[in-house]
């Protein structure tokens, strides 16, 4: 269970893990009291990014952290992999751009569903995507 004031890290190794990530994120945003639409957006973004971590990064992890800033509460997710990295992050964020079998909406689509979004990637080292959404 997600500890409301702490963080938890989950593995992303199989497509079943992607389901586990969705469910953990759902629990966290429900506990934070997100509206149903905001919950749905965050869970959907998490699903896209977890799948990217699996498909393009060859697997990795996600860390869930509950945020508190004054009266504001939110959730931050950090996806990390040690995969091949993204040579051109700007291009990867373009809708419809994909090197895989997907629709190329994952990264750019996830960015539109959250309040904060950052990608750092190094070719041959790996990729980190950090997103946050506030209540």
């Amino acid at each position: 269970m997600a500890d409301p004031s702490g963080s938890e890290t989950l593995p992303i190794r199989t497509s079943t893990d992607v389901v586990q990530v969705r469910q953990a994120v759902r629990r966290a945003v429900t506990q934070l009291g997100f509206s149903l639409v905001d919950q749905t957006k965050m869970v959907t973004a998490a699903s896209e990014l977890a799948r990217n971590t699996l498909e393009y990064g060859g697997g990795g992890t996600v860390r869930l952290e509950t945020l508190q800033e004054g009266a504001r509460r939110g959730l931050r997710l950090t996806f990390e992999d040690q995969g091949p990295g993204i040579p051109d992050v700007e291009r990867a964020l373009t809708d419809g751009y994909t090197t895989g079998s997907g629709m190329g909406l994952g990264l750019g689509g996830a960015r539109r569903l959250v309040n904060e979004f950052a990608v750092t990637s190094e070719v041959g080292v790996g990729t980190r995507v950090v997103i946050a959404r506030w209540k």
Partner: protein
Amino acid sequence: MERIPILKMGEFLLVTIQVDMHDRLALQLQDDLTNRISQTGAKGVLIDISALDIVDSFIGRMLANISLMSRVLDAATVVVGMQPAVAITLVELGLTLPGIRTALNVEKGMELLRAYAAGVASGGGDGGANVGADGEGADGGPVR
């Protein structure tokens, strides 16, 4: 092996997705449905997604694929019961589900399928070209 059940009702196939599908399960459903359409000669497929609390790009693509494949096999697909929060999120995600016909609920979806099977529907939205190609016979009653 885990599978989503496909029910046959007359000339239609019904699928209710009630679990949080992992990607392989979604692909399995896509294959199973295509096979069942071909085996049964079904004229329509109704997919109820009212229990799904998210539709991401993968599931969206699965729905679009099922819709396209069924069209090639001369069956119409209607997706019903999308939750409002899911619809809002889909649009922001950038997923427009081209070629997918939708209805609010199972009842309306069945009406739509019956109309398509009877060849009287004018194809809601885009790409309804093959259904209702023989626009006449509206009053003759569906005797197929």
